[in-house]
């Protein structure tokens, strides 16, 4: 299964982390063939939010939600199941100062739904 590991944290603490430590884990995961994609993000001050309502474009500064912990980067990984995904997420270095949200990828290409989602 594919999981997206979203790395959150206070920007100052994330900024103080050693990039080489993060890159080492990234290399290891890629060497094992379990990393589909991974990137670190520029600080949230550089973010722009885009919306389209009734055909009109609205562009605003900053992120959608105001929180102390910001999205700082992501790993798209390949894992056998949630337990393996948790083990991988636990080794992402910023997990020690922030947190990692582990989300399963919805196989949208295989199971495309028509119309509204029924829950």
């Amino acid at each position: 299964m594919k999981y997206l590991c979203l790395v959150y944290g206070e920007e100052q603490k994330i900024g103080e982390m050693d990039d080489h430590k993060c890159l080492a884990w990234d290399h290891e995961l890629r060497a094992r063939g379990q990393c589909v994609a991974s990137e670190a993000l520029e600080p949230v001050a550089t973010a722009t939010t885009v919306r389209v309502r009734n055909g009109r474009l609205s562009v605003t500064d900053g992120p959608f939600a105001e929180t102390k912990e910001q999205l700082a980067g992501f790993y798209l990984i390949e894992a056998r199941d949630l337990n393996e995904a948790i083990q991988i997420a636990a080794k992402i270095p910023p997990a020690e100062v922030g947190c990692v949200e582990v989300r399963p990828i919805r196989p949208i290409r295989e199971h495309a739904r028509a119309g509204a989602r029924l829950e």
Partner: protein
Amino acid sequence: MPAADFNRRLEAVYQSESRAVLATLIRLLGDFDRAEEALHDAFRAALEKWPEQGMPENPRAWLVSAGRFRSIDQLRRQARFDSFDPLAHDVADGTTAAADDDDPSVTDDRLRLIFTCCHPALAPDAQISLTLREVCGLTTEQIAQAFLTPVPTLAQRIVRAKAKIRDAGIPYEVPAAAELAERLETVLRVIYLVFNEGYTASSGTELMRLDLASEAIRLGRLLIEMLPDTEALGLLALMLLQDSRRAARASAAGELIVLEEQDRSLWNRKQIEEGSALVRRALSSRRFGPYSLQAAIAAVHCEASSATETDWNEIVYLYDLLLRMETTPIVELNRAVAVAMRDGPAAGLALVDDLLAQGDLAGYRLAHAARADLCRRLGRNAEARDAYLRALALVQLEPERQFLQRRLGELAGG
């Protein structure tokens, strides 16, 4: 065989085997809902076939293969209509695990089920509901009633938990050795929460809800049968010892009776013996934790013929050990009460007042009740009255309210 006899025997098979059959079907079919449906189909088949063919030698194996067969049959028919259902293809092709009842993993299925229901990625409420539903086989209605939750809320909680297991890829497995200790902690916590909900309902009119306490003890027994971990032994001991006082804990009118005033002849000796033996086993392993220590404290209480005959020195010592593992204000409060019994109420009151001054226990009814009791023993009635009133303002459980009210009334009279 007469119909009534047959129904009784089938009912007995359901009681003893249905959870184990379900646990194996979940592994074979890879899906909770499909397995539950298959379980029902298997018992429907038994109801048809067993009266003519006689009861099979191994009902569990018969039920597993009947359930699996029917589910696969249904999946094959469905697969002609569904454009894509990978699991349906796997199951129908037999690429998922094969049913082999001599396979040692079959005995592990119930353990897999417990660890899956108590997976830390599920919310605590969901862990409890799912465990009672799937491992204990209680109905949604029974669980809703036990937790004073509306049935639709509880049903929704279970549906969401199963959806998360499926969609987030929570595996059906016993955790690897490296993760076992941590994962077991969650399982033990779920069992103890179920027990506590049954033992002292957090709100409502009945002091004890028998079913949940018994279910928790049953879960504890099932767990140590498969995984005799020290803390699992300790937890079972703790539950047995606390539950042994069940008959003595409430008056006929439903009022709480505190340990000191309980009629100890009503305590369940058999459970005390079993619990004490488990405590000794747990403590001798030297890898014991907080559950084993709490059980050891309960055992000291249970083995004493009265409150004054209790070995309070031993209890204070055990609380000291417990505090080294879990420094919580509630453990400190319990230790203070034991110190009061050993060294007198003034020594206990000094400790309780220190704890209250730290602020964490200001909203905890039992801290004020303990202070009230110690002041009462010291003849400081005005302070005792204030503390009883504070405790009464925080109490939610009716039997406790009655008890505190009576003590307050006695103060006014004395």
